[in-house]
């Protein structure tokens, strides 16, 4: 660092001030407002049947979506980095699609495909399968929006590790499957963890796509983010803050996990 002391201090003040204005103050206000009327009010607000249901629905969706994304992400990263098949370019572009498309558009497109009047709608109705306005739809929307994280974290790690260790394993007699479990997976584990944490944070926080496909039925298809918005819209500001605080707490714990894995990652 060649910058002199006043410059350094100035830069720090600007950076911290920017963060405070955009991030720390709003989040701080949420927590302040939440506990303004004491912990009892907060507790009552997050233990209503609707709130408890929303919390568990949010966790349930994340628990289904994130493992599926993790498996897909690792397979996609392997195909991108190790694969020799044509179509790699296409896959590379497709993986980023969820980043490029607005979540609302993603929700609408799911509606067009799986909704009552959508492409598969009549067939699904006939067989008594409900996707839209129900858990499968919410899971689909969540998978879609959080799809790229694992692949995008794992691919560069795979690239950096190279394939010599895998070749060495092969010459030592390991099958493709054994090589994957014993050599490839351990060498990408921190990248994978990081991708999973990011994917989880996104899955829990998703609003746009989920709001389109969930139908927002209280106590049935409301996730935590939807609940926050609904309470806010119904002038239940304190309730909205309480649910927000809960969401923020989950997000903060995933972030904490992420920085812990980040620390481990820089060791190795």
């Amino acid at each position, binding site marked *: 660092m060649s910058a002199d002391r006043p410059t350094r201090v100035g830069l720090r003040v600007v950076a911290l001030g920017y963060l405070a204005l955009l991030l720390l103050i709003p989040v701080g206000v949420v927590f302040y407002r939440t506990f303004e009327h004491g912990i009892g009010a907060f507790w009552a607000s997050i233990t209503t049947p609707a709130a408890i249901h929303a919390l568990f629905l949010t966790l349930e969706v994340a628990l289904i979506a994130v493992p599926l994304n993790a498996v897909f992400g690792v397979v996609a990263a392997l195909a991108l980095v190790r694969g020799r098949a044509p179509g790699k370019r296409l896959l590379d572009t497709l993986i980023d699609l969820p980043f490029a498309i607005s979540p609302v558009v993603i929700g609408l497109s799911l509606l067009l495909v799986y909704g009552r009047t959508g492409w598969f709608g009549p067939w699904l109705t006939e067989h008594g399968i409900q996707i839209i306005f129900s858990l499968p739809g919410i899971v689909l929307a969540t998978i879609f929006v959080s799809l790229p994280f694992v692949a995008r974290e794992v691919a560069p790690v795979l690239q950096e590790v190279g394939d*010599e*260790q895998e*070749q*060495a*394993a*092969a*010459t*030592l*007699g*390991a*099958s493709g499957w*054994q090589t994957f479990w*014993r*050599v490839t997976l*351990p*060498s990408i*584990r921190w990248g994978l963890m990081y991708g999973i944490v990011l994917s989880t944070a996104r899955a829990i926080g998703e609003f746009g796509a989920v709001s389109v496909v969930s139908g927002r039925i209280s106590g049935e298809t409301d996730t935590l983010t939807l609940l926050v918005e609904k309470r806010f819209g119904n002038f239940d500001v304190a309730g909205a803050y309480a649910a927000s605080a809960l969401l923020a707490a989950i997000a903060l714990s995933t972030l904490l996990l992420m920085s812990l894995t980040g620390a481990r990652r820089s060791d*190795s």
Partner: protein
Amino acid sequence: MIAVENVSKRFGDFAALDDVSIEAPDGKLTALLGPSGSGKSTLLRVIAGLEVPDSGTIVVSGTDATRLPPQKRGIGFVFQHYAAFKHMTLRDNVAFGLKIRKKPKAEVTAKVDELLHLVGLDGFADRYPSQLSGGQRQRMALARALAVEPSVLLLDEPFGALDANVRGDLRAWLRRLHEEVQVTTVLVTHDQEEAMELADRIVLLRDGKVVQVGAPRDLYDQPADEFVMGFLGPVSKVRGELVRPHDVALSHRPEEGWEEVMVQRVVHLGFEVRVEVVRSDGEEVSVQLTRAEADALEPEAGSIVWLNAAPTPQGRPQAA
């Protein structure tokens, strides 16, 4: 024994191997020597099964291995950059092949201890590769390859990533190890000195083709062509003829048939003294003298001496 028969391999437009046939005899160390791009590493990877040849066959210990995956060839492979399993301790690295073969635990432990002792890494069993030096990592890689008792050991520029002095030590160590273990070995190198020191047989490759095969001494004394001669050691050109710089004699007295030259530069390299002289037609010749010869001659820049390029008994190739 390994027999490679009429193997060709192309990467796009580039012919990495062009109808190559070689043999690596049992218990011997065969060096694949050549400049970069000569196809030597590709040939080794084809033998290992890490590359599939476009045509030709690979026979390892009497069985056709051309279509066998690397897992089934009974080989040990050592990579230039070690390919250590970074997340495993030394012990687990060396034990890898044995665990894959589901050997009993006690047997694995005993074998790993034996191998770590063989490669001089006792006491390092619980370290991770990142805690070892390059030379130690490469010895670990050798122990790992030897653990599965391969019928063939393949070494791809094993010392290429190491410092010059570590390389020298490891080379001597590998020679002793090979005498002890006597496993059929194929070594890829671009370093002629390494090949001369270690190999029983040298296969010299260039542009994907075998140029010459033979004992190190045969290649040095009876090179098939100018390229082989130049690759195996320094050469000087006198009157259009190639000679080894140590086959050129200098004298401070004129003798019958000797030629008058002027000394340009004298370089002392310890035991060896390199004298650069220029002939009357302007051609520069590099001469290698021992220190005793140089002391007798006392060459100085600008002084006149007489030169004789003694023809070697085998004759030498004509320069193009």
